């Protein structure tokens, strides 16, 4: 199992007259976990949707393992802010909506997110955190080479969020996919990622490596300092 090398070359994205992204150049190494931070409306979610193949760039190229991306990115799985589970399918069917995997794979991934006992349940009786764990299982069951996380923990309470962060890091270390996390939570990005990029008004305005060995401690001075640097930068950027 491994990830992909993601190469973004001079990408622009416009919706009509509105310029959302301008000249984005970025490379993500195979197996790297990259965090993308910015104010809401800065274009970070659009960048993720471009990588997923849900939008097409207005200019520039997007290479996955040196192959130009056209259409839906089949190497990628995306986790949305809302779990987007199908209410009419039980947990185990939600994990594999296209029925591409074996029952064994489904059981195994449910086991790793700690929901094997709930596999026969309907989604509406699960808590918000459990729903997102099902969504994480769904994203990872087919062993994707690229995991895209679009503020997947934004709607969860603080404790559940910390648990989910640990879970994501654990599964990333086991499976070594390439990860892309979009978030407005600076601490989350610093805790999870190898490198953090700040986007301001559609452009990359800061890039900073997080060279802190894992497991990382939330209260440690290194983490605290990095968070402060990134946060100061985000706050100094212009609000839209």
């Amino acid at each position, binding site marked *: 199992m491994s990830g992909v090398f993601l190469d973004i070359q001079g990408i622009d994205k416009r919706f009509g007259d509105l310029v959302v992204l301008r000249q984005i150049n970025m490379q993500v190494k195979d197996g790297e976990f990259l965090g993308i931070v910015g104010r809401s409306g800065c274009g970070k979610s659009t960048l993720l949707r471009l990588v997923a193949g849900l939008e097409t760039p207005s200019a520039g190229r997007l290479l996955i393992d040196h192959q130009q991306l056209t259409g*839906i990115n089949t190497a990628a799985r995306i986790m949305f802010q*809302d779990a987007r589970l199908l209410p009419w399918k039980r947990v185990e069917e939600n994990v594999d909506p296209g029925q*591409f995997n074996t029952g064994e794979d489904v059981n195994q991934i449910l086991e790793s997110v700690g929901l094997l006992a709930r596999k026969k349940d309907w989604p509406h009786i699960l808590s918000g955190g459990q729903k997102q764990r099902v969504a994480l299982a769904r994203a990872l069951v087919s062993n994707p080479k690229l995991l895209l996380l679009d503020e997947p923990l934004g709607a969860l309470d603080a404790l559940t969020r910390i648990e989910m962060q640990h879970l994501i890091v654990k599964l990333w270390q086991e499976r070594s996919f390439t990860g892309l996390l979009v978030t407005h939570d600076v601490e989350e990005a610093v805790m999870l990622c190898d490198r953090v990029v700040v986007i301001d008004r559609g452009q990359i305005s800061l890039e900073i490596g997080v060279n802190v060995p894992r497991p990382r401690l939330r209260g440690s001075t290194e983490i605290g300092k990095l968070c402060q640097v990134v946060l100061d930068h985000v706050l100094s950027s212009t609000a839209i």
Partner: protein
Amino acid sequence: MTSPSIPIRFPKKQQVSFKIENWLPWLVPTLLLLIWQFSVQWGLVSARFLPSPLDVVQASWKLTLSGELPQNVWVSLGRALKAFAVGGGIGFALGLLNGSLRMGEWLLDSSLQMLRNIPNLALIPLVILWFGIGDEAKLVLMSLGVFFPMYINTFYGIRSVDPGLVEMGRVYGLKPWQIFRHILLPGALPSILVGVRFALGIMWLTLIVAETIAADSGIGFMATNAREFMRTDVVMLSVLLYALFGKLADLITKWLEWFLLPWHPNQWKGRST
């Protein structure tokens, strides 16, 4: 937070075998029946004008023995089912088509919305001119009545499915027919069943009208025929039969909902997995 030393007492539910909410709905109908029976029996109302409930029961028994009642019920039910299959089937199919494909909507939806506003009963003279007073005429009228609620609720059911779920399906590699089968269709199902409910209501209404105006068999015919001979008991029986079938249709749709929507949160009162 409660300290552990304080025992928490949950109020125990009283074990009552006689539950008032189960019996109360029957009180008013039973009282009405009794008042009806005794006011006829004691001569407060003329039996010619309003037959007593017992008279109605007797009439239904006689007609059952003579074979007239089962025959007419059978004919009416057959018409209802045929019309529901034809009108409902076409409405469902077109609803799915126009709901899933923009091209279908552009081509057909505005025309259908225009026709929808014509009450199907307004077409009776035209339908009689075209098809006579045979079964075809009734089938056309009833199918038209059933078609629109099925079409509209299927169409809007498909359209109201959360686009986020469809997007999820695309990202997760589902083929278009899989998106239809696993996301659009089940998402539209609650609305489709609302359509079934409406369609059944309109179906009975149209059936009654069609059978009363022009027919030589069926429950409606039985009532019209009985009127000619001043058989109020048979007329009453026909009315009660329609009420019974209406209730039966309602029960069937409730059962369908229970069976087809086990995941729906509304159904989660008193249901285990």
